[in-house]
């Protein structure tokens, strides 16, 4: 009974793992820039990064579908480059997830970098550290808890996405059929037992990850 559902579960974990890794790499410079810039466009940049928090996933999915489709701006460019569409495949899901979970990674990193402050960075510069060296030897270790929070939030948020995935990924087994879509399918076909199994897994995971995050934050206050 559980066997056919192992596919969506593994695919979802794979997507969350890849998206979170990409997000940490992309989110770090974005968060650092937001934490340190005095540029006037900062609020605009912050608003754009935060959009996925308030935007209905279907709205985001709809625009991404248009953008990613082989006729769309990004989709046609990608089609020229790779001969593949961005919609209805796994790679498209990774791109969408990265955009969708961006605020959940950037915001904790940004506030962690803000609390590191410029004083310690200056101390590092006067001790001979170049900016990148100072960043990795001072800012990153001090933002450790911010990174843990970002990883937990980014991973769990990607795990639970539904609307965006449905719009641009569809329901192709092994390619785009993620756990949340599998649950939806099961409920539609009145297979409550399977829906229960998958839902419980997600519920347990969500609780454990939130607990983990609050434990991390509590320790940082103590």
């Amino acid at each position, binding site marked *: 009974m559980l066997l056919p559902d192992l596919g969506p579960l593994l695919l979802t974990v794979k997507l969350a793992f890849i998206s979170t890794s990409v997000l940490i790499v992309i989110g770090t410079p974005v968060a650092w820039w937001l934490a340190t810039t005095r540029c006037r466009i900062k609020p605009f940049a912050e608003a754009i990064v935060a959009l996925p928090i308030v935007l209905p996933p279907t709205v985001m999915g709809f625009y991404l579908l248009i953008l990613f489709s082989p006729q769309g701006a990004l989709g046609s460019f990608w089609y020229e480059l790779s001969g593949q569409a961005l919609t209805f495949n796994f790679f498209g899901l990774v791109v969408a997830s990265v955009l969708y979970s961006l605020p959940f990674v950037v915001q904790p990193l940004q506030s962690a970098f803000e609390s590191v402050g410029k004083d310690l960075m*200056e101390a*590092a510069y006067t*001790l*001979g550290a170049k900016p990148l060296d100072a960043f990795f030897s001072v800012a990153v*270790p*001090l933002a450790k808890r911010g990174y843990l929070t970002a990883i937990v939030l980014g991973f769990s948020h990607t795990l639970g996405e539904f609307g965006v995935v449905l719009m641009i990924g569809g329901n192709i087994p092994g390619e785009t059929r993620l756990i949340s879509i599998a649950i939806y399918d099961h409920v539609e076909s009145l297979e409550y037992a399977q829906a229960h199994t998958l839902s419980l897994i997600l519920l347990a995971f969500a609780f454990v990850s939130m607990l983990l995050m609050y434990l991390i934050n509590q320790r940082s206050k103590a």
Partner: protein
Amino acid sequence: MTAANYCSVQLIKDGFELNAEFEIPQKGVLGIFGHSGSGKTTLLRCLAGLEDKASGRIIFNDCEWLNDKKSLSSQQRNIAYVFQDSRLFPHLTVLKNLQYGVKRSASELQYNWDSLLQLLNIENLLERKPETLSGGEKQRVAIARSLLKNPQLLLMDEPMASLDAAHKNEIIPYLETLHETLNIPLVYVSHSLQEVSRFCDRVLVLESGKVIYSDTVSKALSSADSPLLKTQNAVAVFDAVVSELDAEFCLSSLITDNGTVLQVKGLHEAGRKLRLRINAADVSLSKSRVVDSSILNILLAKVVAVVDETDSEVLLQLSVNEDIFLSRISKKSFSLLNLTIDSDIFIQIKGVVLQSLLD
């Protein structure tokens, strides 16, 4: 100007204008003195390369740090900076904090690691995290960390400002020893005249972002045109070398660069350089050499100037071999002694305070 170490910086920041020009000495301690808001810290930050909007020209050891075309970043300037608030890295142990600069230093370490740690008395703190240290300990670690970076120029921004009196007293002896042993120039920012008179060789007075006075500390404390001449509690300071010892009475004779000899209590190591401090109120005058006096230090001096006058007292400058002493006497005595400029007069010094007392 063609001096080897020269600094001229301009910076406008948050409505404040800094425009300072001065020479950085090759050796010794240059004090930057001024009240809060005078731009001392900003000036030091410009020297350190921490203000990217600073313009002007800085040349240090034949290297252009700042000119019209370029501005070297902090890590290229080979400086070290001791901040007011120590700024130790909280995620690293004391040992790792100390090693941070050592690892990134281009040149061979010129300080002996063990003796520096011993000098600053931090050998027992190495495994501790900064959060467990007292304010004084933090600042001592910060000083060691900056020296171990092996800089050509050491910058200190009020390293004692955030400490209470007890912790200040804990740091002062170490700074005094540093003053004696350091072979690179140190620029020391302070708003405390006491600190400046204790550690600095030269002093630069900053007001509203401009240098209004610059001279040796001795001159700055005793010259009539100096903004540092305090009319109340005036003091004169001298650097002198221990020349002779009197073991029987436990006295040391010290000689200044100008050849003035003064005796102080206690036996000190011959050849050691000490800073002496003489309060104007402890210097009395006499027309003839008093022979039956308990006072040890009696010198023949010339009246140079009357630098301050109140209803009841006058503050006089007196020179002995070009060393300037200050004396505060009553107006009545001044009149009775019938003193004029260039009069010869004996000065009797009741108290000589030694500043470097680390033994």
